[in-house]
């Protein structure tokens, strides 16, 4: 699969052949560092002064390189596809090799960073329950009111969370019915077809 580079992107990358390969390698290092820790605009100004160009040019060059690396890593394109995609830029053989090396060296780490961008909901860890009978309260004495107290243990991004909930038995039965209905859905033809398709494509 080839990367399609927009005209604006190609313009930004056109700065790279105008500098030494050592500078491009440094831009690559800055790009990955920015992916790890966030951007730092002061770096652009320092580099711009040393290279005698505007800081916008440096920023576009680094951003263009970052986007090239993240898109390639995101799609996990092959070496050959990467080389072909970069070929259209008309760079020197040496620069093409450098860019390919940057991609291959950093691909795994970039993919790990990108995977952390997906939202993560809290997930089930454990459930404890207790059946209580309320005998009295501040407002009413001589009661017999059953209730179920639940402690739900959740995991989110490695943190442990607990929520204590309370409900009456009728609502709990309704909750159980709803969950059973959701499980029943798995047995419908529609769901079966979808699951079969996922199983066959996930080789």
């Amino acid at each position, binding site marked *: 699969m080839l990367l399609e580079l927009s005209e604006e992107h190609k313009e930004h990358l056109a700065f790279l052949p105008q500098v030494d390969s050592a500078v491009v390698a440094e831009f690559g290092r800055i790009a990955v560092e920015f992916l790890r820790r966030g951007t730092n605009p002061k770096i652009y100004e320092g580099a711009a002064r040393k290279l005698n160009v505007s800081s916008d040019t440096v920023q576009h060059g680094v951003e263009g390189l970052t986007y090239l690396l993240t898109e390639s890593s995101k799609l996990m394109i092959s070496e050959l596809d990467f080389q072909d995609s970069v070929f259209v830029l008309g760079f020197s053989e040496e620069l093409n090799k450098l860019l390919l090396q940057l991609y291959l060296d950093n691909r795994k780490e970039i993919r790990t960073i990108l995977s952390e961008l997906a939202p993560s909901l809290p997930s089930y860890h454990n*459930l*404890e*329950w*207790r059946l*209580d009978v*309320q005998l009295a309260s501040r407002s009413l004495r001589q009661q017999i009111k059953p209730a179920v107290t639940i402690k739900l243990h959740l995991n989110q991004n490695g943190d442990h969370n607990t929520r*204590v909930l309370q409900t009456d038995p009728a609502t709990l039965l309704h909750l159980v019915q709803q969950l059973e209905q959701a499980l029943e859905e798995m047995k419908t033809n529609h769901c079966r077809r979808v699951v079969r398709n996922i199983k066959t494509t996930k080789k």
Partner: protein
Amino acid sequence: MEASSEPPLDAKSEVTNQLVDFQWKLGMAVSSDTCRSLKYPYVAVMLKVADHSGQVKTKCFEMTIPQFQNFYRQFKEIAAVIETV
């Protein structure tokens, strides 16, 4: 002379939160996921507390009967001390 626009310093509301409501109930746990047959009485308390900005927070906690008796004893002591002040 103009009155000061700042409200008078209220010693308790600047420093501590205000108790807005105190609800309690007495319950008995009869069964749980770890023990199917229980006879465990407890007191559950629900406090409503307002901070100095007016925001109300609810705090719930439970006590066993011996814990509650200790809790009650504290308040008896506080009441006794107030009498002597």
